[in-house]
């Protein structure tokens, strides 16, 4: 990837995992509503298969976004810390300081989003469909 990254790549890196989580979340939720909130027999959906499938796709998107952030963080780490050592403030002038900042933000966001996606992606299919808690 070229440096500095284009806006599209940058914002994918920062937000990709979060958006993947949001899509996985809303879609899987509506699958469960369709299957479990409806009177029995109305929908017969293989929701565990769909949940697993969608979770895998979402996790892959999250991993892609994470790798963008890892690359960007590595690329700007040295530059930013040299600048930091020279002055009191946080890091170097735009865009390096901002890019480093966004990379760190993206890493954490993606890590947490991946955690939720993996927790639910593994947990939901282990449960009996439509058993009440």
């Amino acid at each position: 990837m070229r440096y500095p990254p284009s806006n599209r790549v940058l914002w994918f890196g920062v937000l990709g995992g979060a958006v993947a989580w949001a899509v996985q979340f809303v879609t899987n939720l509506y699958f469960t509503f369709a299957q479990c909130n409806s009177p029995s027999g109305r929908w017969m959906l293989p929701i565990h298969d769909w949940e697993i499938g969608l979770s895998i796709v979402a996790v892959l998107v999250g991993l892609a976004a994470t790798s963008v952030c890892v690359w960007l963080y590595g690329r700007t780490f040295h530059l930013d810390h040299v600048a930091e050592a020279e002055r009191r403030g946080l890091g170097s002038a735009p865009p390096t300081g901002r890019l480093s900042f966004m990379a760190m933000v993206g890493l954490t966001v993606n890590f947490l989003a991946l955690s939720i996606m993996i927790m639910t992606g593994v947990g939901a299919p282990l449960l009996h469909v439509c058993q009440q808690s």
Partner: protein
Amino acid sequence: MKGTPAVTRSSAAWSAAAAGRVSRQRMAQPNGWWGMALFLCAEVALFGTLIGSYFYLDFQSHQWPPAGIKPPGVVLPLLATAALALTSLPMLHAARSARAGRRGSVIALIVIALVVQCCYLALQILLFRHDLNQFTPQGSAYGSIYFTLLAVHHAHVLFGIVLDLTVLFFLVYRGLTNYWLIGVRGLALYWHVVNVLAVIVVFTQLSPSL
């Protein structure tokens, strides 16, 4: 920041040509454009909630639509929505003409879009009344969500028409100043989002028949 860089005093752009120049010189989107974009985020959330509610009620019912109510006809709503969605083209060109400083084109393009939008709304009102004769919102949850979803959408189209007329009035009365150039761009953005929402709403409305 060394000295005072050569940035424009945008509000001083009173003529169409000056406004166009200011528009092309900007690096970021103007504040008014951002304001409209964020307002539209809230409107998208609004429709998301309405459509989510539609399917929530759908999924938890025995039969949808309930017994005695025919699923909606498909052809007219789809054709009408296609016509509305196509008005994004004149609106897109209106925004481009505004950035180029051509007031006459802007006015003509908005008028074209306005005519189609008014015809769309008139047809939809007729269809709405026709549906009301078949079943009512007070008769079932299906009726309630069906008519509410459509009414909220049509209200947005009506609001857009009022915005069209307001922008046209000020373009004639005040000219294509910087302020109204941003207004035209905001208006175009409004219609793009409303048109996309129209497509989603019509597919929701017609989901039992598809």
